[in-house]
Each structure stands twice: as C-alpha cells, then as structure tokens.
C-alpha cells in the first residue's frame, strides 16, 4: 500500500510542478533552451517512471504481493535476528515526533537547555530507568557538545529567545 501511495504522490507532484515549470519566465537573452527545459525534463522522467512503477504495482496480483511481502519480511527478520534487533513502530513514531518538537522548542529555549532535557526524555522512553544515568548522560553530552561546537569548531548554536537567550549568552 505504502509503495503505491509513494508512486502516486510522485506522479501528482510531477504533474503539479510541471504546470508551474511552464510558467517560468523566458530568459532575457536569446538562448537555445528555455529555463523550464531542465526542470521540465526532470519532471517528465519523474512522471513516466512513477507511472511505470505504479502500473507494475497495480498489475501485481494479491497473491504475488503477499508472497513478495512475506519473502521481504523473512529476509528482514533473518537480518534482524543476526543483529539482535527488533522493529518497534511506536518508537519510530516517537523518534520522529521528538525530533520535530525538538526543532520547534530549540528555537525558543535554545540548545543549552533543550538538548539535555530532550535527551533524558528520549532515553527514558526508549527504556532507560536508572536515574543517575538519566541525569549524568545528558549533562555529560551537553558538556561534550559545547566543547566540540563552541570551543573547538566555533559552530553557532541556537540561543533561544528572552530569558533563555540571556542564559545561553552566559555560556556561548
């Protein structure tokens, strides 16, 4: 199902942006090709290939699809068995959300406070329960990050706004 949605999305994307590409203003100087040529070409390739992929997926019978999915799953399980790992959909969704909210919060609160707090939260949700570990690891991590980014490589970090900016300015 997901594969078909993705192929369908690419088809729609190609059509929408191709129509936008046609409206690109022609260059002021005389050139053998226009500005819409290259993106238009890319979008045509995208549309044609996505359509081929979609047709292939639609032509697959339910039995074929199930057999392929079962074979893929078996292969994946064998690999995960060897690696000693297991899939966890909830943790994947949590990973996506925590990353999303981190980027929102870091703008207001700054790197200094957001990073250890979110790290402790991430560790807690992924199964770490030792209180010492949940406190020490994030603090140690932020110290190493500051040393690496502020002292060693002079990379700018988000400072936050308001009072959080004042706090950040005390450190970097």
């Amino acid at each position, binding site marked *: 199902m*997901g594969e078909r949605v*993705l192929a369908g999305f*690419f088809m729609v994307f190609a059509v929408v*942006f191709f129509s936008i*590409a046609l409206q*690109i203003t*022609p*260059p*002021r100087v005389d*050139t*053998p*090709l*226009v*500005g*819409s040529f*290259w*993106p238009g*070409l*890319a*979008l045509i*390739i*995208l549309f044609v*290939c*996505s359509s*081929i*992929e979609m047709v292939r997926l639609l032509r697959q019978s339910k039995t074929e699809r199930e057999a392929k999915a079962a074979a893929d799953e078996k292969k994946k399980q064998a690999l995960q068995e*060897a*690696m*000693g*790992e*297991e*899939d*966890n*959909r909830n*943790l*994947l969704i*949590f*990973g*996506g959300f925590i*990353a*999303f909210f981190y*980027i929102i919060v*870091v*703008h207001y609160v700054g790197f200094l406070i957001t990073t250890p707090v979110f*790290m402790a939260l*991430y*560790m807690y949700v*992924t*199964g*770490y329960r030792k209180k010492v570990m949940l406190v020490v*690891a994030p603090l140690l*991590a932020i110290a190493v*990050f500051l040393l*690496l*980014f502020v002292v060693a*490589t002079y*990379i*700018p*970090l*988000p400072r936050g706004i308001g009072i959080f900016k004042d706090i950040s300015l005390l450190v970097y």
Partner: protein
Amino acid sequence: MFDNLMIAASFVVDPINFFIICSGVVLGIIIGALPGLGTAAGVAIMLPITLSLTPAQAIVMLGAIYAAGTAGGSITSILFRIPGEAQSAMTMLDGFPMAKRGEAGRALGLAMTASALGGVFSAIVLMFFAPILAGWALKFGQAEYFALALFGMSTVTSLAAKSVVKGLISTAIGLFLCTIGLSDVFGVERFTFGNDDLRYGVSYIPVIVGIFGMSEFLRNAGTVVVREHKIAEGGAVKTQFGVIKEFLHMKVLMFRSVIIGTVIGILPGTGGTTGSVIAYNEAVRWSEHPEKFGTGIDEGIAAPEFANNAACGGALVPTLTLGIPGSSTTAVILAALMSHGLTPGPNLFIQNKEMVWGVFGGYLVANILMIVAGLWGIWMFAKILRVPRAILNWVIFILCVVGSFGINSNLQDVWIMFAFGLLGYLLEKYGYPLVPLVLAIILGPIAEAALIKGMMVYGSFWPFITRPIGGTLLFLSVLSMLFPLIRNYFEKRKKAKEA
C-alpha cells in the same frame, strides 16, 4: 613531482593538520564499527563541522573518516558477526570463525593491517594517477562535461539501484531539486514562489545531512536491541602484532586484491562492497585450498579488506579529477569540496595545487595511521560499542541539527534537513536508492550549465554526439542504462534453459 611530494609532506607535518588526520582516523573507526551508521552517513554528519576548517583540512578529515570507517566495519564483523559496513560482510565469513576459535586479536590484526595496506596502495595510485587523468580532462569542452555528468548519473542509477525505474525516480527528484532558485545560466527564478530564501536554491548540505544522517536516526529509532552481542572469544581483545609477517606469504593475493579494489573503486556506482566480493571470490578461485575458505583462514580476511580500502582511494580519483564520485561517501566529499567554494575537476589541480597535494599526503598518512589505531586502539573501539543505542542515536540527531543550523545560523536549514530525513527514510524503506538522488543534486547543475553553454557555442546538439570523447561517454551512458535490462534478459534465458 618532487615539489608536489614536498607540498604533501609539509602539509602532514604541520601539528594541527596531523591532529586533524588522527581525529579523522579515530572518528572513522568508531563510525565504521557502529552497526547502522555507514561511512556515507558518518561523513555527511561530520561535513558541516568541517566547514570551519581550511578546504584541505576538511577534505583530509573526511577522507580519513572514509578510509578508517571502511576498515572499522571489520571490527564488528569479526567480533560480533555484524558487519558495521556492507563492504565488511565478506570479512565476516572468515573473521568470525577465526574469532570463535579464540583468535579474535589475530583476525583484527589481519583485517586492520590489510585495510591499511590496501589504502596505502590506493593512496599512491591517487597521487600518481589523478594528476594524469586531470591533465587529460583539461582538454574537455562543454560537450564532454555534459556527457561526463550524464555518465556519472547513469552508471550510479543503473549499477547502484536494484530497480532502474526506482533509480531514475531518485535521479529525477535530485535533478528537480537542484533547479530551485535563481538560475545562473538564464537569470530567471524557478520554483521560488516569492520566497527570498529559496532564491539561493536548496542548500545541499542540509539535504545530504538529512538524507543520510537524519534518516539513519529514524531507522535506529525504530529498532530496539533485544540481544546484547558477546565478543566471539568471550573476553578482552588485544590485536596481535605478529600478523604483519603473515602478509609476506600473501604477496600475490595482496597485489590482485588491491588492483581489483582500486579499479572497482574508480568506476562510478560500484565501490568497496563489489570490490570486496570480487576480491574474495578471486581469492577462492586462485587458492590451492579453496575448501578452507569460510573456516577462518588468513586469506579470507585479508582479500576483502585489501580490496575495500583500495576502493576508497580509487573512488577519490574520479571525484577529484572529474567531479564524478565513485561512491556515496565520495558524493558527500564532493559536496564538501563545493561547500568550500571549490569546483572539483581538472582545474582544481592547477588553481588549488597545494590543497590537492595536501589532501593526497593527508590521505596517505591516514591510511598508515590506521595500522597504529587498529593495533593499539581496538579495545577502546570495542568499548564504544557498549554505549547505549539511545545515547548514540541522540548524538547522531544532534550532529544533524547542529550541522544544518551552523551553515547559515537559521532554522530553515534544520527544517530542510528534517524533511529530507523523512523523505530519505521513506525512499529507503520502499527500495529507492539514495545515492542517485544526491549525485543528481551535485551533478545536475553541472550538466545543465554544460548543455546550455555547449548549445550556445556549437549551435546544435549534434557536436555533443559527434565529438569523440563526449560521444563515447554518451554511448556508455546509454549502455549503462540498458545494462540491467540486458543482464535480466540473459538471466531469464539461463533460467529457462536450466528449467
């Protein structure tokens, strides 16, 4: 030549440069050893951090991470039977059985030394072969540049992807993305929707960091470790020095494997994994005792390790001389070069000669240092593997965020990184290759500019086909796209005959 070698030597003896090389080697081995974090992702994550360095220091550091990461992948292959890198999978076949026999130290010593020797050989090839190739490429016109960019994209699309259609979809997405912004050639805005930030185009560093780094974070976030791995021989590991003398008995195998690795590395779209598989197979084929392979013998560890590190130097040859990356990691290194305002290609060897030779020298020293790191540092790297997965994964995420933010000090780049992380995760989940996308982002503008300028100069497309080098490269591009179809046809015919 002597002058150039002196430039290389003066670069590496500088204490700061030497420290950067050492850091690259240590980081590379750690990145390579961590299962789930490939060298491409590792180099992508470290790319923004290297922006504060000089171009030569940045490329040397990334090159050292690339070489050491390839070697580091063998640590987990041997100790835990988990290849840290796909190219270390062949090492596992004999490395793990040897470790199980209680000779993990010997296996690690063999793997690290073979990697280093393979890397040193390819570094020497890089030093001598790259300037020749660059000199030849100086004669290239717009037709050749267009054909070369197309050749790079087509080989990666057809060879690196399991499905050509999916490879082409990835390429098309990359080609489209690089058209966003103000066109250099036409002076018109494309897909900016009135947004001032988009006028400068989509910066490829957040895109690359997202595609390789953020998607890695998501993948790791969705997997939990249910079983801790035990070191095969059940105790502390100490790499053995004595194995160096074993290489004297493997001269022919070494020569054959490094040649295979270097040549495979030079070809765009292939790389260390293919090199190590071919080198291993050839080692079995030419061996007097092929039945012993897979039981834990020296040749079974050395052959793939010679080849996969030789492929690293090989992949850097077309990257620096022609601007065509030989692997996903060199595609990221190419992006790093461009981030420093340098244009990869033959002119690099004239305009930035000191930088190029500094990189060569640094890359050679990085490979030599790998022996030292491998011999004395294995215990430390094995310990790092014990750091909880959640902490390591969070570190990956923070490096992605800081790396994207640090370029222009704005959160828009972080959001771009996040969006491309999601896209990269989805594409990989459904079998779409990521390398063609990245390559198209880098080579797309080169191909477009060369096509337009060439058409202006020649007046038509015809000379693109009739000029000898350009025409040959275009023909090879078409051939490489048809290659999977031809291969499928013969495979089907073979199966039908067998049935």
